[in-house]
Structure formats: C-alpha cells, structure tokens
C-alpha cells in the first residue's frame, strides 16, 4: 500500500469522526471542535496530494483553510458566548427561538 492511501484513509476516518461528532453531540462548543476536526482532515488530504503531485500550491491552500478556521473559531465562539449570556445554555436543542 502506498503512503498516499494511508494518508487518505486517516483523513477519511478523521472526517467521519468529525461528522459523527457534529451529528451526535448537543453542546455547541463540542460541535465546534468537531468542525475543526473535519477541517483538519481536509488539510491532511491536501497535504498528502500536494506531496504526491510534487506541487506546493496545495500547501498554500492549507494556509487559507487554517486562516478561515481561525476566523470561524473566533466569530463562532463570540456568538456562543453572547448566546450563553442571553439564554444561559449552549445546548443546541434549547436554542429554538426560530421555531415556527
């Protein structure tokens, strides 16, 4: 088995764990962590392919993904904190103000 497929399998497992965490958990913070897991899985795929193809452009794309992840974490946690200040909870089932 070539090393590329090893990387791809690890990345697929990581993405699966992240996606199942998003679907399983109720706490918004843990859902954030699982989103980070999925982003990392994608980064791993990009790195593996960039190495396999011998093209460093894939690594540049990973930088952009990291930057967007940092921005997402900052804004998302700010929203979570302000929601917590109003509702005293971060459980997604209880944040149902928009329910019809």
């Amino acid at each position, binding site marked *: 088995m*070539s090393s590329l497929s090893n990387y791809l399998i690890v990345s697929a*497992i990581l993405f699966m*764990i992240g996606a199942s965490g998003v*679907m*399983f958990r109720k706490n918004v913070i843990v859902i954030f962590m699982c989103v980070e897991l999925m982003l990392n899985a994608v980064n*791993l795929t990009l790195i593996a392919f960039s190495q*396999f193809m011998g093209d460093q452009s894939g690594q540049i794309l990973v930088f952009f993904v990291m930057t967007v992840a940092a921005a997402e974490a900052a804004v998302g946690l700010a929203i979570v904190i302000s929601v*917590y200040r109003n509702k005293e909870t971060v*459980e997604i089932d209880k944040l149902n103000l928009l329910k019809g």
Partner: protein
Amino acid sequence: MFDIIFYIFGAITVGGALVTAFARNIVYAAFSLLFTFFGIAGLYIMANADFLAVTQLLVYVGGILILLIFGVMLTSRIGTVDIRVGTGSRWVAGIMALGLFAILCAAFFGTAATHTEKSADGKSQVVTSWATHATRPWSGSKWNQDATTEALKPKYGAPDEVKSNEGSSGTSVEIGTLFLTDYLLPFEVISVLILVSLLGATMIARKEPTKEEEAIAESVSV
C-alpha cells in the same frame, strides 16, 4: 520505519479525535483535541510539510484550542454532563457517518481506478489509480528527486522514505515565493478577512453597556 512512525501518529490522531467526538466530559474533549492536533502536525512533517507543521502547532494548538478552552470555561458549569441525542437519531447519525466514510473511500480509491487502456500501438495495458499506485513514488516533490528516479525503475518499487528526505531544505522558501507571486491577491484578501473577523468577534462578544455606563462614558469624553 516510516510506516511504524506513521501508524503511531495516525493512532494518536484518530484516538484523540474519537475522545473529542464522544467523551462525555467537555474538558476531556478539549484536551484530547490537543493530541489530535499534535498527531496531525507529525503527519505533516512526514509529508515533508515542515513549515505547515509548525504553523499547525502555532495556529491550532496555540490559538484555536486556547480559544475553545476559554469557550468551555465560560459557558459550561462544572459537573454538567453533556447529554447526547436520542437513540433514534443516534442510529441515523451513525449510519450517515459510515455512509460518508464509504463515499469518501469510494472517491479516494475509485477515482481512475484500475482499468485497461489501449495504447497507441493497439496493445491494451492496465492503468492503476493514483491512490493505489505502488510503482509511482509517494512524493513527487523536488526535494525527492533521487528517490523519484530510483523508484521509477520498476524493480525498486516504492522509494526509501528515509533516504528521500536527505538534503531537504524545507518548504518555506517555496511557500514564501508562491505567496508573494501567484497567490498575492488571496493572501491580502485573507489578511483583511481575519482582521475583520477579529474585530467582529470582539464586537459580538462584548457586553452591551447600560444607560448609566453610557452616560459616564459621555461625561468623560466631554
């Protein structure tokens, strides 16, 4: 040797991710995320992405993880147990996650999978997919030229990874060149994006000032 270290890092990564996704205690989840990020940084190093591995540690471990732990501390009461979704939705979620895994694997290993191809002289030959390539060297980067030429000889097969990394001067030179030539505009745009998002985050998270505080602020400014 390469494989053993790869499996160790992969096990750290996947184990940390499992604890993150399924631990009942949120603090455990946050700290096992640390192991996942470290494992991924190790995997980056093994893929010759040294600069990115350091960036991974700086940005994820030093920034995002600290931010997440702050979020945990600010929003959860000590001793609360995270309740997961009901059993019905749990089955659906598990099946969906496994289906996603199957789709990803099919995409990785099914794309351009083994097929016969007719070459110019009419002979049919078997062409294998890139993901299951055994003859093509794992790394095509220019740091790996010796191993590439060696591995292209059919009798050698996969390259010796330890030898392939000899003489590597790192990827930071090439990354810097790419950032300031081909990717200059996205680089600038993304720096504006992160500035705006940080300002927005502080705006969203700050406390709304009360009437008295506003009055005090006005009297001070006048």
